């Protein structure tokens, strides 16, 4: 069996602008097999754009993207085939509204990978089982809650057996009580060895499975390190400020509000 | 071939001989349609079941009959109509009536849609201040509804001015008839004259629908007003 010397993903000095606005300014990082990389930072920092550069939905202006050693920017590359190897889970789910859950998951297998209807159906059902949505296979997206829809979205990406999966703020559009079920699924697949790049501010998830965390602000990587590094000794002021904002989001804001002591 | 009108002559003739009637028919049709249409819209929104049903029936009736049939009914079908007009002017009466009745049915829908899309909170707030239903409508809902109607209304204008071309056969010299007249004896420019008149209609419809219609829609979006 050949040993893979190549990293699964290599992002090399990527730059991207929209009109006059420079959104990404020289981003570089690498991702090995079974690694989970968490990218976080303030909104507008270019994180979503970065993911779309990786799967070439919106190609970088400058820089290189390598998937298992192969450059995605070369002109002779079949982008569709490459994209089939990269899964994506969207903030707004983007489930195909006219298809039942099972068909949402199987359509890629049928139309892109060319599997027969029966084979695709079996694999799709497997994927739905992994995300615990098998009983809802025949429901339409509109009949599912946000958390359920996102889990189907994850199943859709999983069923393609991609080299890696990109997650674009998968829980940001969810009601608080539904976030848990999606994070649980993500934890499960991370522990099962899926290679993931996750844009999120769910620090608990990051602490549990991330091999490295990268903080991006205004298109530049400010700091990177293990989850332990960030929770114990973040260096940059901007990072510290951001982490404090996250704390407030999750209700740990006793200091800030100067809540009265119990004795008063 | 020496005295075949050239494209400029055609253009100029259609403009001077036909445009006045076209604009007059359009303006009158739209105006009368406006008042009737507004009334129908009010009947449907505030009128209660019977009035709603009546207005709705009117709309269905006028939308289901071809305009050409309406024009012929009023110009040739009812001899006594427009007794007060000169015989030569009667076709104008017939065409305007047909255009107005038809336009009213469509304008009614535009206004009804606009009124309904004014945020209900607006009416609530007005009543809370102590205004009567009528005052609330007149000062708060109506002004907003009018603005919301502009895109739909600019579209209706385009429809009516194009429909005015059907009047060519009943003895009114509007643009289409003018185009036919100038090219009558010259088969080689029949198609050309139709092309020219088409461009002329286009000049009078496209800028209006593009600028007024789309700009207003954008302005409304920016203001965050109802609509859509």
């Amino acid at each position, binding site marked *: 069996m050949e040993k893979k010397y190549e990293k699964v993903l290599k992002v090399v000095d990527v730059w991207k602008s929209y009109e006059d606005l420079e959104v990404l300014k020289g981003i570089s990082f690498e991702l090995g097999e079974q690694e989970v990389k968490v990218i976080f930072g303030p909104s507008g920092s270019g994180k979503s754009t970065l993911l779309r550069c990786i799967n070439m939905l919106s190609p970088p202006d400058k820089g290189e993207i390598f998937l298992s050693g192969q450059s995605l920017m070369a002109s002779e590359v079949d982008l569709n085939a490459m994209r089939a190897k990269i899964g994506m889970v969207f903030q707004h789910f*983007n489930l195909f509204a006219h298809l039942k859950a099972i068909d949402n998951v199987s359509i890629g297998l049928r139309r892109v990978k060319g599997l027969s209807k029966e084979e695709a159906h079996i694999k799709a059902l497997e994927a739905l089982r992994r995300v615990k949505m098998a009983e809802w296979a025949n429901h339409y997206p509109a*009949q599912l809650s946000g958390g359920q829809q996102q889990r189907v979205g994850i199943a859709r990406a999983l069923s393609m057996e991609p080299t890696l999966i990109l997650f674009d703020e998968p829980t940001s559009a969810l009601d608080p009580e539904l976030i848990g079920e999606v994070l649980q699924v993500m934890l499960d697949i991370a522990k099962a060895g899926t290679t993931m790049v996750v844009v999120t501010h769910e620090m608990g998830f990051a602490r549990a499975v991330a091999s490295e965390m990268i903080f991006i602000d205004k298109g530049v990587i400010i700091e990177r390190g293990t989850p332990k590094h960030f929770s114990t000794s973040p260096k940059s002021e901007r990072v510290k400020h951001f982490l404090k904002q996250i704390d407030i989001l999750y209700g740990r804001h006793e200091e800030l509000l100067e809540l009265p002591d119990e004795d008063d | 071939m020496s005295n075949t009108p050239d494209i400029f002559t055609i253009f100029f003739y259609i403009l001077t001989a036909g445009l006045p009637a076209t604009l007059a028919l359009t303006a009158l049709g739209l105006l009368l349609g406006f008042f009737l249409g507004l009334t129908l819209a009010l009947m449907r929104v505030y009128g209660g079941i019977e009035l709603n049903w009546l207005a709705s029936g009117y709309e269905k009736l006028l939308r289901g009959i071809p305009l050409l049939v309406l024009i012929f009914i009023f110009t040739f079908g009812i001899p006594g109509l427009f007794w007060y007009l000169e015989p030569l002017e009667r076709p104008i009466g017939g065409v305007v009536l047909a255009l107005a009745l038809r336009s009213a049915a469509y304008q009614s829908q535009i206004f009804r849609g606009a009124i309904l899309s004014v945020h209900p909170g607006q009416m609530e707030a007005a009543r809370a201040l102590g205004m009567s239903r009528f005052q609330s409508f007149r000062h708060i809902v109506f002004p907003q509804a009018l603005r919301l109607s502009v895109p739909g209304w600019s579209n209706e204008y385009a429809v009516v001015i194009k429909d005015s071309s059907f009047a060519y056969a009943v003895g009114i010299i509007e643009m289409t008839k003018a185009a036919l007249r100038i090219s009558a004896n010259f088969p080689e420019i029949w198609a050309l004259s139709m092309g020219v008149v088409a461009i002329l209609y286009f000049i009078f419809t496209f800028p209006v629908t593009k600028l007024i219609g789309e700009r207003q829609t954008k302005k409304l979006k920016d203001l965050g007003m109802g609509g859509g």
Partner: protein
Amino acid sequence: MILQELPELVDDILRVLGFWDQLLIGLAKTMWLYMWALLIGFFLGLLLAILRQYGGRVLSRISTGYIELMRGTPLLAQLFLFYFLPYSINSLLRAEGLPYIPIGGWAFYTTTEIFGRSLTFVFIDHITLIGILTLGLNSAAYQAEYFRGSIMSVGTGQLEAAQSLGMSRRKGIFHVILPQALRRVIPAWSNEAAYLPKYTVVVFYIGVTELFAKAHHIISETFLTLAAYIVVAVIFLVIITLISKGLDIVHKRTAIPGL
């Protein structure tokens, strides 16, 4: 004045209905024109909408130009333009001494007998062809706008998701965007489909014997002007209402939750 004449009017209407064979042929012609115009308009309109939305700069502009031009000019002017074109071209060719295009003089028709009356229906001839083409090309522009609206309402996220699975843009448009867009367009499209029969009367002006033309035929024999027009108006009303209700039922049957 009108109230006194009502019983007389009813009589007149009954006499007009005595010409049911003519009315039937006229109606058949109207529906024939309508059907072809709707079909041509549907496929061409869908193509135009897709080109406008996904076609790239050149195709998108051509499509937009066509749509705006057809929608901004009267149907009658378009009809006359296409009708006169062969004649004008011939005129110019003749002047140069060149051979000219033959126009008209051909027809495909069928004759049948119903209840003792002989009915002849012309499937296609020179003027019917021009009529169908004009109505189809015109309807395509209006239908294109409906399709464009529904395509846009599907949202870019859907195409992104399709591409992220590895589907090419073409596959994404065909398997993901279109099925949704076509279902969403049904209410608005039903509007166009239900009212299109009205517009077929314009071909009366180039001599096609559809329903409205038949009314004139009846008038020339009976002088019952108002009655004839009323009968024709009511027939249109009934047809349009039936089509409208029918499409409503289709809409309810094909509903998918959330679309």
